[in-house]
């Protein structure tokens, strides 16, 4: 029987009511009295020297309040990078300055040159068009390998080259891996691209800055996944505002997928300008602007080699990756191709020797940073593609080859520095075979063939590291932040609870699922629990939501704080019932004394905490409010097996997804309905990457896919319904809820399934020379592969 409340119940989302009635409160819905509007004049060239910016004509135009250029930000900090990588030679990465408004040079199309603050958005835009920019266009460097090979064109003149870092992992394994590959029975090699994507949350970014001259307080309303992180980065590193004078609010946020983690120039500008013009300043991105100013994702070029013995056991793995950073280092960019990618190269398999080399490269393109999965999709794609190719080369069934190499005993220490606490990869594979009816494939293939369609089956596994992250570990790896989470649980006198969590919902449904956990722990109705997030003035501290960390880290902090609440409440209950603390039990909102019929209700205890007439004042303080910081002991390791069946039209190369199935192990689950939805959405994005989406720059650095007219977002009729299952559950061993996180799995696990399926379809049709096609698998690419 499904549960009707608490942990494990598919409780309807409370936040839906406001979203379904037009009552959501997004940042662009905020309009402050007297606000002015900003329009950014952005570079139209990818690389150029700024000779002069003449704002005089624009300043004279009606409605213009003030125009800012890079000169206004001289001496003010640039946008900081939150992660420092040490390269394979022990040197720290090259880290360029990232000014709020361009100074001296522009380095990508979209780089902001000037900002017009005006009475209306239209006046700001009109004036921006009247600014005369004297710019000497320079040759741009777009291709990563060219950027490394040729340092005649440097993105940053003050750096020695376009190479940010050359990272080796695990460097001590390098020679042993080379040796193992040299001596192996079989080596499969694959060169592939993980193309650049644009995150495209449906809500474009917005920032509203406000300054109170009377108190010296600043407020920034912004579309962020982590308002406290923005407060810290912008306050401490850019504008020099102490945290107690800066409030950052991220109200309802319309999706993020990673792109709203980072601290952006527009946030700093609006906060800075609000003080400078003594008025609130608002910026709303257009979608076109989002395409050239939101950090983009992926963009890896990789050569992977897998060595196997004659029976198909994996012996060693070596990868050589170029990772595009774009023109500047976005907030967490350096960590994505390194620690979020190299540490996952073992996948679900026992590969004793692994060496990962990553060269991170500056180019004249929009900065690249985390996008749903961040590094883990890139790792999974390489590994699961090369395994499929190896299976074909060696004449082994691809599922059997995976099974032969599965990690089966836990905990398992990989050769790439992480330890999987739990998992059961055989169970998720068996579940996948069941829900996808893999035995029935041949019959379905024959039916497709009768229609003239080429059917293919792709299967793969994935593992990810979620619940980021142990602070001491990431500190050693170069993180300039702790990655704990905090929660404050405040119990009111009448028994209602308010949870202030540093985690942030931008679609994940925290207000519902977090309340389910509290409801379960205390035994009160979930309606008595309010979840507050997204406002630094209400929530003491927070690191925000990304890396599928909300329930695993934020939820754990909330559990710890609630445990403290329960412990104190039991002391009060013990006093009220004249019993010993250790005899008090809490169930269904009632405190009882074990072995007696004495009881007091939750509400009686909470009232006593605030009206302490009969209260152990000599032992404990009145009130009932507790805070906990939870720093995880390890990452969590969700894993699973995915399958995709495609039909390829042999005449046009068009790929149709015939079916898609996902068997995941997320450990324990708080709200199965929400988990299903997270997986669906991830799969939708993964299929989007596999078949549709691409971010294309021409050789001059012009973005050719800068709108929804050119960038192929998955639409409803591009996707099928999905079959998803998460009944295989090996609970996480090191967090109190036993949860692993589910937000990124779909986006990580699905691209290789699709590409494996298309290659399979073509192979079965006799195109035996087609061993790989780079994403997106557009009709023209598939057709070209068939006719190559």
């Amino acid at each position, binding site marked *: 029987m*499904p549960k*009707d409340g608490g942990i494990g*119940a*598919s*409780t*309807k*989302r409370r*936040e*839906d*009511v*406001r*979203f*379904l*009635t*037009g*009552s*959501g409160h*997004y940042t*662009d*819905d905020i309009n402050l009295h007297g606000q002015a509007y900003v329009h950014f004049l952005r570079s139209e060239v990818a690389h150029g020297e700024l000779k002069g910016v003449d704002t005089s004509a624009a300043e004279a135009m009606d409605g213009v309040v003030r125009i800012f250029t890079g000169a206004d930000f001289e001496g003010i900090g640039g946008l900081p990078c939150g992660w420092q990588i040490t390269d394979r030679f022990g040197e720290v990465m090259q880290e360029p300055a990232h000014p709020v408004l361009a100074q001296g040079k522009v380095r990508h199309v979209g780089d902001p040159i000037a900002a017009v603050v005006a009475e209306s958005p239209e006046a700001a835009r009109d004036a921006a068009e009247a600014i005369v920019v004297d710019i000497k266009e320079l040759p741009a460097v777009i291709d990563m390998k060219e950027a490394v090979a040729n340092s005649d064109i440097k993105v940053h003149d003050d750096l020695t080259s376009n190479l940010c870092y050359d990272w080796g992992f695990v460097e001590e394994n390098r020679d042993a891996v080379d040796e193992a590959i040299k001596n192996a029975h079989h080596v499969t090699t694959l060169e592939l691209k993980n193309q650049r994507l644009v995150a*495209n*949350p*449906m*809500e*474009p970014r917005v920032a509203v800055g406000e300054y109170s001259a009377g108190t010296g307080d600043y407020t920034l309303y912004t579309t962020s996944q982590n308002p406290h992180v923005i407060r810290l980065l912008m306050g401490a590193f850019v504008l020099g505002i102490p945290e107690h004078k800066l409030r950052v609010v991220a109200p*309802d*946020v*319309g*999706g993020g*997928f990673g792109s709203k983690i980072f601290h952006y120039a527009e946030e700093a500008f609006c906060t800075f300008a609000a003080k400078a013009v003594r008025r609130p300043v608002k910026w709303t991105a*257009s*979608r*076109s602007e989002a395409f050239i100013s939101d950090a983009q994702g992926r963009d890896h070029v990789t050569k992977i080699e897998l060595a196997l013995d004659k029976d198909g056991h994996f012996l060693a793995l070596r990868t050589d990756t170029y990772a595009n950073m774009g023109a500047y280092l976005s907030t967490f960019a350096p960590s994505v191709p390194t620690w979020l990618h190299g540490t996952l190269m073992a996948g679900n398999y026992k590969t004793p020797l692994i060496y990962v080399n990553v060269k991170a490269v500056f180019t004249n393109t929009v900065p690249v940073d985390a996008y749903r999965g961040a590094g883990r999709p890139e790792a999974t794609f390489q590994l699961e593609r090369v395994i499929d190719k190896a299976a074909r080369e060696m004449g082994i069934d691809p599922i059997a080859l995976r099974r032969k190499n599965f990690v089966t005993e836990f905990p398992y220490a990989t050769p790439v520095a992480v330890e999987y606490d739990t998992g059961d990869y055989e169970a998720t594979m068996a579940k996948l075979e069941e829900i996808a009816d893999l035995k029935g494939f041949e019959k379905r293939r024959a039916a497709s063939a009768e229609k003239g369609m080429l059917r293919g089956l792709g299967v793969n596994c994935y593992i990810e590291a979620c619940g980021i992250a142990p602070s001491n570990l990431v500190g050693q790896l170069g993180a300039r932040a702790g990655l704990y989470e905090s929660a404050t649980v405040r119990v009111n006198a009448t028994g209602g609870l308010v949870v202030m969590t540093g985690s942030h919902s*931008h*679609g*994940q*449904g925290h207000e519902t699922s977090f309340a389910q956990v509290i409801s379960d722990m205390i035994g009160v109705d979930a309606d008595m629990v309010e979840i507050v997030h997204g406002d630094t003035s209400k929530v003491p501290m927070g690191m925000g939501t990304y890396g599928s960390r909300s329930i695993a880290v934020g939820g754990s902090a909330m559990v710890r704080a609630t445990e403290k609440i329960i412990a104190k409440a039991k002391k009060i209950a013990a006093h009220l019932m004249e019993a010993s603390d250790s005899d008090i039990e809490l169930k269904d909102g009632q405190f009882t004394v074990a072995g007696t019929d004495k009881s007091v209700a939750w509400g009686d205890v909470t009232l006593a905490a605030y009206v302490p007439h009969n209260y152990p004042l000599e032992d404990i303080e009145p009130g009932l409010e507790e805070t906990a910081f939870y720093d995880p002991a390890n990452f969590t390791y969700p894993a699973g097996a995915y399958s995709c069946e495609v039909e390829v039209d042999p005449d046009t190369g068009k790929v149709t997804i015939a079916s898609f199935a996902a068997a995941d192990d997320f450990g324990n689950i708080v709200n199965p*309905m*929400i988990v*299903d*939805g997270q997986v*669906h*959405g*991830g*799969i*939708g*994005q993964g*299929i989007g990457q596999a078949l549709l989406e691409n971010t294309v720059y021409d050789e001059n650095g012009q973005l050719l896919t800068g*709108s*929804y*007219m050119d960038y192929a*977002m*998955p*639409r*409803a*009729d591009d*996707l099928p*319904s*999905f079959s998803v299952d998460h009944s295989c559950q090996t609970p996480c061993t090191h967090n109190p809820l036993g949860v692993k996180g589910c937000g990124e799995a*779909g986006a990580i696990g699905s691209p290789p399934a699709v590409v494996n399926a298309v290659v399979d379809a073509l192979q079965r049709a006799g195109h035996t020379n087609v061993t790989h096609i780079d994403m997106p698998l557009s009709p023209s690419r598939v057709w070209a592969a068939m006719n190559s």
Partner: protein
Amino acid sequence: MTEVKMTVNGKAVSGTVEGRTLLSQFLREDLEMTGTHIGCDTSQCGACVVHVDGQAVKSCAMFAAEADGAEVTTIEGMANADGSLSTLQQAFQDHHGLQCGFCTPGMVMSAAALLAENPKPSEAEIRHYLEGNICRCTGYHNIVKAIQAASGQDVAIAAE
């Protein structure tokens, strides 16, 4: 500047607009009805869909002046008279047909227009009709289910 009058969610409204003022802008800025969302600038995403004289329209692709005299319905006008969720809205909640909520107003408005035209659409018909509404969160799976359920078709319920 032009004077416009229209009925929005059954209420007579008026305003003074520029020729270039879009219906979406008029709703959001002049009438302060922020349920209608702007997700793109090329009339692709559908977050701004409203009904104009019973037809689903992308309000970013229509000038406010063009809607002079029209009957406009927005997401704010879709609940039952007592404020409870309509059958369609309730189906979106029951089937988890929304996550971040940003595309949701447009999705609901498009879905309502579909059901008015085609009371029992198939999955393929729903997917085809929603081509002009982009959702980045749900993979559309549960949106399709919600619309099927709202049309009285048998769909296993996601929530309890």
